[in-house]
């Protein structure tokens, strides 16, 4: 039996030879491990090399700048949750991450891991997308930056090459009157996988009119659905009940949700609408509070 190799590079530079080796050796990046370890035990993933990225400083730092927020790919959810400023700036992004698993899982789960696991029901991605997150991808030839929505290409698949790793996320700091929110539906109150998850990022002006919007839905398609039509519908309105009802209606028509042990197709369509309406309201209320 082949034994698995384990490497925990201390810097991006140290990671380069490992990433090069990963071109020919089946490898996995180990962040929090909360998905990977289960997949390995079930025999779904059989890497021959694990690259533990948690000792690389760039991947574990959380930097709250005036213009942008830099979130290392391997920052545990619990650390995000404990950062009051991050809560204030990107409440939806925090919500997405803190809904993943239990307190115990929170201590390990990371935004980079959640995104690169590429589950259609991943809780992290929708809010990161609506908050215009960018991913810095590191490889032997340097870095490249892509929007969050370009990382997942299909369930379990990402656009990262075998010799690349997700280094960090960069979010623009929200403007006055702008905020985000994430809601998901699960049958219990914890410990479940999203049946549907919806994120919204809303900007309002002093009159309460929506001036910009972004809505994204998880678990209704193989990858996150960015609802540009809904966003277009919201802009210019005061997010009144009729508008939200119309948005909900549109959300219920989106995607191609499956029927499985977690919910039926019809149910997912319905819930997508309900959550869309509710999450826009929450994001709008938060945005209003940020007008000073």
């Amino acid at each position: 039996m082949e034994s698995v190799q384990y490497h925990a590079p201390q810097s991006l530079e140290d990671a380069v030879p490992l990433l090069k080796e990963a071109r020919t050796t089946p490898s996995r990046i180990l962040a929090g491990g909360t998905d990977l370890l289960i997949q390995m035990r079930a025999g779904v993933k059989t890497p021959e090399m694990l690259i533990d990225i948690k000792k690389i400083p760039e991947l574990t730092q959380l930097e709250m700048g005036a213009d942008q927020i830099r979130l290392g790919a391997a920052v545990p959810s619990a650390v995000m949750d404990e950062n009051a400023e991050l809560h204030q700036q990107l409440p939806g992004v925090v919500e997405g991450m803190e809904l993943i698993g239990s307190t115990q899982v929170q201590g390990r789960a990371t935004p980079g891991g959640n995104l690169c696991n590429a589950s259609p029901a991943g809780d992290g991605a929708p809010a990161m997308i609506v908050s215009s997150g960018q991913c810095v991808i590191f490889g032997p030839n340097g870095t490249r930056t892509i929007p969050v929505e370009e990382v997942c290409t299909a369930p379990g698949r990402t656009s990262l090459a075998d010799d690349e790793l997700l280094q960090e996320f960069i979010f623009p700091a929200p403007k006055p009157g702008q905020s985000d929110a994430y809601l998901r539906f699960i049958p219990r109150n914890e410990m479940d996988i999203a049946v549907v998850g919806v994120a919204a990022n809303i900007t309002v002006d002093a009159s309460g009119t929506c001036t910009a919007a972004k809505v994204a839905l998880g678990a209704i398609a193989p990858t996150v659905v960015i609802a540009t039509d809904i966003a277009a519908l919201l802009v210019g309105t005061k997010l009144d009940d009729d508008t939200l009802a119309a948005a909900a209606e549109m959300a219920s028509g989106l995607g191609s949700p499956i029927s499985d042990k977690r919910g039926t197709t019809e149910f997912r369509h319905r819930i997508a609408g309900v959550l869309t309406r509710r999450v826009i309201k929450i994001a709008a209320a938060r945005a209003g509070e940020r007008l000073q």
Partner: protein
Amino acid sequence: MSKTHVTTTINGDAVEYLCEVDQSLLDVLRDTLELTGTKEGCATGDCGACSVSLDGRLVCSCLVLGVEAEGKQIETIEGVANGTELHPIQQKFLENAALQCGICTPGFIVATKALLEKNPDPTEEEARYYLAGNLCRCTGYDKIIRAVLDAAAEMRGAA
């Protein structure tokens, strides 16, 4: 099959062990180090029976690799009591009859300790939310939550 040498600290003791890369910390604790107080209920991070503290952070030891413990501080149920003197959380679990079969108890106590270190005065709702990753099938959680709140009050009083 080559094994990796790991140096770590468990309940204050310097510990060295050899483990395979794909071996979980839970398996190392239970099988290699014979610290069987940490329990396995699912091995998928869904029941919390294997809860330990890793560098002060509550985790499921089934979702941590043994090799990842290198240089870390680990606390398990075996380190909660001070010798034969029970920790107030342990004492309150007993007084409140917060266990029936007892398989989930080590995980609950380790998790409760983490909770109270972070939040010495949790509401019932906060306690329930924090402990939602610890499954108990015997008690319906009522007496566990009472024990947690009772222990919190006692520890605040003692502090």
